[in-house]
């Protein structure tokens, strides 16, 4: 039905414009942009003997050494503690923000704080609160508050307004909220909270890459030193943590876990007082303004920063993420039959599920890190990592969606069925998911710079290493602007393509 919605003959040409036609145009542009990105992207393989290294990594995964990493269980506890506290604080703050969702300022503020990646927040808070649990907690809580605010805000907007209208005239806003609004959205909130905890665990682990004592700390050390048995063991512990989530995460136990997390890693700062003031009054003040620089000096400083770092960083981020988006689309379309009941048998689907689960559980940052060891610091490992991770998510959700397709008895089988029946039916959903994921791909692309690929994160990391926080903040600002732009563009496109917000339930659906 959807494809004929809004069809009307063009006044001048007499041709029909259909939503399906818009899908074709949008897909064409996506494809063209992606191919152009692949043409200009730096895809060189910078490695001597990848075969040997691959063999060593495979060997490491077959013989994990759990005793090699000192403090692996402490790191696991830290990973859990930071994630639990960060997500709890994020929910609380996001909840408060959502109550005021009708204010433009709150919406804009939430958009900005969630556009800054957890790792960028981590780098900032390392300066303010030191190598402390508080840094880990805030690096997760702040962007998550922005994400929760948006999701809760939209849940509230979409929820049934009638109970609120039925309350006696003159009921206070708080009363209305707690009695007539909140109960309606509690169910989806819980599901979404559980999904976010999984994301929080991934973020917490990854924060180890910038020095916090979580699993990522040891993972980075082991893999970079070439001790793949030790690295594999840490990775297995991480998979175990995520994979068993649904067995231990019960609603009634959440408070117990949170209490334990607060006991294990009290969210305290280890930095002295005054770091906050120092940060705002001195650290981030553009260096020409610290001396007796003029506005011209400031402009020269800014122009130089932009031409040497900002613009190259933006360009590389754009190229890498556009190429990754196309690769994600292709991979998702190829992979979803693995888990679709319309294809294969029970065993092939079981294997498919396992493969997709591993790919979507492994953070793209981590995949990129391992691929970088194999392929060297070009854009190639970044593109592959983003496409594998996001492609697996989109394929999984698409595969599940095929469950609800009409099961016609005369439907063709195999390749014929894929091309003439399944694909046309699920294509709008694939497109919607890709547009939802676009922003996330962009956000992750920027951060890959920390690993040595020259996206924005590369220059942000350099600015932090040189203790030039004024530069770092401008560069992070660029990443935020790019993200807001993509977010807005994706929303416009979804409206244009009539991919309604309801299809968003697929994007929000818990990943395991």
């Amino acid at each position, binding site marked *: 039905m959807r494809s004929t919605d809004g069809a009307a003959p063009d006044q001048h040409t007499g041709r029909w414009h259909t939503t399906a036609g818009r899908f074709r145009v949008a897909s064409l542009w996506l494809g063209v942009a992606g191919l152009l990105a692949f043409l200009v992207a730096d895809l060189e393989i910078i490695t*001597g003997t990848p075969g040997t290294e691959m063999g060593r990594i495979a060997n490491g995964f077959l013989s994990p050494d759990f005793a090699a990493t000192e403090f692996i269980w402490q790191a696991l506890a830290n990973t859990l503690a930071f994630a639990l506290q960060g997500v709890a604080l994020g929910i609380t703050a996001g909840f408060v923000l959502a109550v005021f969702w009708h204010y433009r300022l709150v919406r804009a503020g939430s958009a900005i704080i969630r556009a800054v990646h957890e790792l960028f927040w981590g780098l900032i808070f390392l300066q303010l609160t030191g190598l402390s649990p508080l840094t880990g907690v805030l690096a997760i809580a702040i962007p998550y508050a922005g994400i929760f605010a948006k999701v809760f805000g939209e849940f509230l907007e979409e929820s049934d307004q009638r109970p609120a209208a039925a309350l006696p005239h003159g009921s206070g806003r708080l009363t209305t909220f707690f009695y007539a609004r909140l109960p309606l959205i509690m169910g989806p909130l819980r599901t979404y909270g559980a999904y976010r905890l999984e994301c929080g665990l991934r973020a917490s682990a990854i924060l180890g890459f910038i*020095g916090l004592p979580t699993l990522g700390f040891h993972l980075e050390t082991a893999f970079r030193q070439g001790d793949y048995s030790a690295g594999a063991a840490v990775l297995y512990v991480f998979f175990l943590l995520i994979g068993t989530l649904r067995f231990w995460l019960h609603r009634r136990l959440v408070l117990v876990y949170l209490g334990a997390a*607060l006991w294990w890693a009290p969210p305290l700062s280890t930095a002295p007082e005054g770091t906050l003031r120092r940060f705002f009054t001195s650290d981030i003040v553009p260096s020409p303004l610290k001396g007796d620089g003029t506005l011209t000096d400031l402009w020269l400083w800014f122009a130089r920063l932009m031409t040497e770092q900002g613009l190259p960083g933006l360009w590389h981020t754009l190229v890498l993420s556009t190429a990754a988006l196309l690769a994600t689309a292709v991979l998702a379309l190829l992979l979803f039959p693995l888990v679709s009941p319309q294809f294969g048998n029970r065993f092939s689907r079981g294997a498919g599920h396992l493969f997709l689960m591993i790919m979507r559980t492994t953070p793209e940052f981590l995949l990129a890190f391992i691929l970088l060891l194999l392929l060297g610091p070009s854009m190639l490992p970044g593109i592959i990592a983003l496409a594998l991770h996001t492609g697996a998510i989109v394929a999984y959700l698409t595969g599940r969606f095929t469950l609800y397709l009409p099961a016609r008895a005369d439907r063709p089988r195999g390749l014929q069925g894929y091309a003439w029946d399944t694909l046309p039916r699920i294509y709008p959903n694939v497109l919607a998911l890709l547009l939802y994921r676009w922003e996330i791909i962009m956000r992750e692309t920027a951060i890959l710079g920390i690993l*040595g690929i020259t996206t924005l994160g590369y220059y942000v990391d350099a600015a932090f290493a040189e203790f030039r926080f004024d530069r770092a903040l401008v560069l992070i600002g660029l990443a935020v602007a790019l993200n807001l732009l993509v977010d807005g563009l994706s929303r416009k496109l979804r409206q244009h393509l009539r991919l309604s917000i309801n299809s968003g339930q697929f994007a929000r659906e818990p990943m395991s």
Partner: protein
Amino acid sequence: MILRLTALLLAVSLAMAAPQSALADTFVFTAIPDQDESRLMTRFGKVADYLSEELGVEVRYIPVKSYAAAVTAFRNNEVQMAWFGGFSGVQAQRLVPGSRAIAQGVEDPAFLSYLIVNASTGIEPGDAFPMALQGKRFTFGSRSSTSGRLMPEYFMRQATGQSPQQFFSRVGFSGDHNATIALVQSGAWDAGVVNYKVWDQAVREGLVDENRVRKVWTTPPYPDYHWVIRGDVEARFGEGFIDTVQAVLIGIEDEDILASFPRKGFIPASNDDYAPIVNTARELDLLD
């Protein structure tokens, strides 16, 4: 549930906000993770025990992930002393007014870096920088490394008249010296620069396949690693504490402990010794 959760969170964070005085009298130090990170705890745990015994206060070592993290921890007083490289030490001295360079290795006033190449480049050792490397792939160590980036870059700019980005087809940062050796040996990069101490140690321990990677050029000498201590430690550990720490460091004779650095021994240092590093860093636009 969310309300209860909020209440609990608030209550607990208030309870936890009590001052953290328990750790106040532990003297904490760190070291830049310049090689083999998985052995840092073993390397510096011994040093902590030794210092603790000699100084009569509790001494703890904390590992950090990067050079910048070491400097940040020093700046935020999370560590009171650190074993820095030339450049990170200078960064630390500038960020913490009153901090002092107190000791350096016997080798550090005249430190060296080696240029190493993969055998496939066919470049042979020589006295001059091998210009045949033009257009090859080249890796530094850590961004903030003195022997793995700053000084070699400076000398290479002098030799080639170009920035590394112009001279080479691709420039990377491996992260640390051992990684540089491994990556040049595997051929992932055609060439790289390393701290001469780490190279010599790797050769001694048989970690280097000299048929596949070899050193071809040595930089002129420059000042490098040193211990920097915060000026405000005397308020906590008593008048004269800095001098005591300096004397203890210089007095280290235990071969096993010295091997952790690795140095033959320690000698006094002062902030002024690192003026050449400051000037070079300014020229390379790494310091304002």
